[in-house]
């Protein structure tokens, strides 16, 4: 069993690359693989141009966010936006800020519960990060810090800046005149 095969497989299975694995992974074909720095540590992933999005996903079996999860992720992007063309690493916000974007005082208890549930799922899928990096298991409660998760660091392609332009417009729209 070659060292590179096993090292790469470990990095993929673990979702992070250890420091001692970096020199070995440098031997992978750069037209396919890259190591990206994220808040959860370095991650082995496909190169920028191979990250599937939009039309490339048509007809493929992929996981799609539910409407509530998508709205909640958009709210996370709005409250953590810094004006940069890429959402990662973004600013640190809080669960309160996400709920404020989603409806604030107008939200009923059930809607708040659904939004918190969606935040927990986004956290599990590493699209959002609840609590401070490396913190114990954290759930979406008021006052808990929120930022975009390490999976967002892997986003690439023109669609990302288009999305962030939309996020910028939405953030502008909800700012008090």
């Amino acid at each position, binding site marked *: *069993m070659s060292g*590179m*095969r*096993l090292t*790469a*497989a*470990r990095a*993929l*299975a*673990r979702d992070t690359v250890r420091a001692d694995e970096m020199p070995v992974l440098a031997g*992978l*074909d750069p*037209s*396919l*693989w890259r190591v990206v720095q994220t808040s959860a540590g370095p991650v*082995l992933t*496909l*190169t920028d141009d*191979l*990250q*599937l999005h939009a039309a490339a996903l048509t*007809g*493929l*079996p*992929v*996981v799609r966010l539910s409407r509530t999860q998508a709205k909640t992720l958009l709210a996370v992007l709005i409250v953590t936006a810094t004006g940069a063309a890429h959402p990662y690493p973004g600013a640190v916000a809080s669960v309160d800020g996400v709920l404020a974007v989603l409806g604030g005082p107008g939200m009923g208890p059930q809607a708040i519960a659904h939004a918190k549930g969606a935040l927990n*799922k986004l956290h*599990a*899928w590493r699209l959002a990060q609840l609590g401070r990096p490396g913190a114990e298991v954290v759930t979406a409660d008021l006052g808990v810090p929120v930022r975009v998760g390490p999976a967002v660091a892997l986003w690439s392609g023109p669609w990302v800046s288009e999305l962030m332009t939309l996020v910028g417009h939405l953030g502008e729209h909800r700012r008090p005149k």
Partner: protein
Amino acid sequence: MNLDRLAQPEIVTVTQAVAVLEQSHGVVGAASLPVLAHPDLRPIVDAQLDEVGRVVIEHRDADGEIEGYSSGYTDDIAEQLAAEGLGVLPPLDRAIVALVLLRCVAMPAARGQAPRRWSAATPVKLARLHDNRFLGNTVITEAVNRLHDQHVLVNGRAAGIRPGPAFDRLTASQRRRIEEDLLILAAPGDPVVAALNRQRSQGGPS
């Protein structure tokens, strides 16, 4: 096999195939990946995946024709990762997965109705899983939801629960190993199980 030796369009075809296989959740239709039927390019896709311990998995229809593909860890790598505890489910979650596989795969198979693909098995209702007396209903329900989020199971709510797309990433040999485990679990006194246990204790093929 180095990609540098290929023309640019071929590099794109090969790398796109790897990207689709690695990022899809479930079986990709054969028509979406014609490169995997190409006699010269298929070995290159195989080699690229093998560099990271992965392999193309072919899924066949009732007539034996390839209907789609997925990718997963090669048998030697999967065994090593499991030995190191990487990607191994905690005991409670494993128990729930075993219950679902017993209901969705093993029991239909015993009736001669084995699902062609585990992820397409007839779902089992949550209430049937709650029949288990050793685990509380809340514990079972929470584990099902957790495993759904990890794509190990699909919780179709009213439609029921079935194995998820993670099982499409198992090789035939890895699925056979689980089938044997289910047999050992369901019929520990069966002579076939005794033979299996003997074979395993001697380090033979499983």
